[in-house]
């Protein structure tokens, strides 16, 4: 082990090995930071999905009749569906990488099952289902019309 017994200090081989080790450690550390950053991004997406879905449910909660739903809800195969898209900053846009679908299916006359899904492209970020009771399912509040 002539190299290790040398007294001149570090040899080229020793330094090369050190640099290689440093490079390896750097890659591991950078990967850890990237993983942490990705986890933050995913957590942020789930947060935003939760907030955007609960916002939509709050708006729904406030509606007492089907007639008072906004025009964004359309009837599609016995379901009432709303689709919305959001850009990278989760701002409402016509097209975007995030998509939210709210669909309501009739259970009884006034009770609807609500399915909410939030997608990133083809990948589902979160989904939940709940029920919405319409006090006046077929009437517009106040005017008495059908």
């Amino acid at each position, binding site marked *: 082990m002539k190299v290790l017994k040398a*007294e*001149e200090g570090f040899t080229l081989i020793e330094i090369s090995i050190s640099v290689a080790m440093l490079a390896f450690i750097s890659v591991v*550390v950078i990967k850890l930071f990237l993983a942490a950053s990705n986890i933050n991004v995913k957590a942020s997406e789930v947060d935003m999905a939760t907030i955007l879905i609960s916002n939509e449910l709050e708006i729904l909660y406030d509606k007492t009749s089907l007639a008072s739903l906004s025009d964004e809800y359309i009837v599609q195969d016995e379901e009432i569906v709303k689709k919305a898209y959001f850009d990278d900053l*989760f701002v409402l846009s016509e097209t975007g990488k995030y998509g939210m679908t709210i669909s309501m299916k009739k259970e009884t006359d006034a009770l609807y099952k609500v399915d909410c899904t939030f997608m990133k492209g083809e990948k589902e970020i979160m989904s939940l289902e709940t029920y919405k009771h319409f006090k006046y399912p077929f009437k517009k509040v106040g005017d008495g019309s059908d």
Partner: protein
Amino acid sequence: MNNKNIKYSVETIMVTLLLILFSIMVSVLIFEGSLTYKKVLNAKESEENTRIALSFINMKIKQNDLANRVYLDSFEGFGNAIVIEYGDEEEGLFSYIYFKDGALYECYSEGVLCDELSTKIVEVSGGSLNITEDGLIESKVSVNGREVSRLSAIRTNYERVVE
């Protein structure tokens, strides 16, 4: 190479250069690592604080949501604040929830809104409270370069729609 006499050779210069490179790389790695770590932590903290602020507001509204007991009002020096009127054993007491100086505050008092009686709930980079066209309370908080808004339906509005 003689051990007693120091001679500069190509190998020595290369070794010295590599050593310097090694030191610089270690320093840069530590510096950049620490910056990235702080950035990741700050982003995480901002997201957490935003979640806490919006959940706090929503929880307070839902806990006390009786007709005409929860509403939004404007106060000089404070801007818009959510006002919660308590009943029963807490009759005459109010809670004011508002954003001021980069934080969310709650003031629990006998109808007076002031800084001295206010408690800081959580620090957020900026927030505002408004009423939407549909009559829902909208809490907006800025976080990591974007604005997060959460809507809360209130019974007062619900009653108004039914009537």
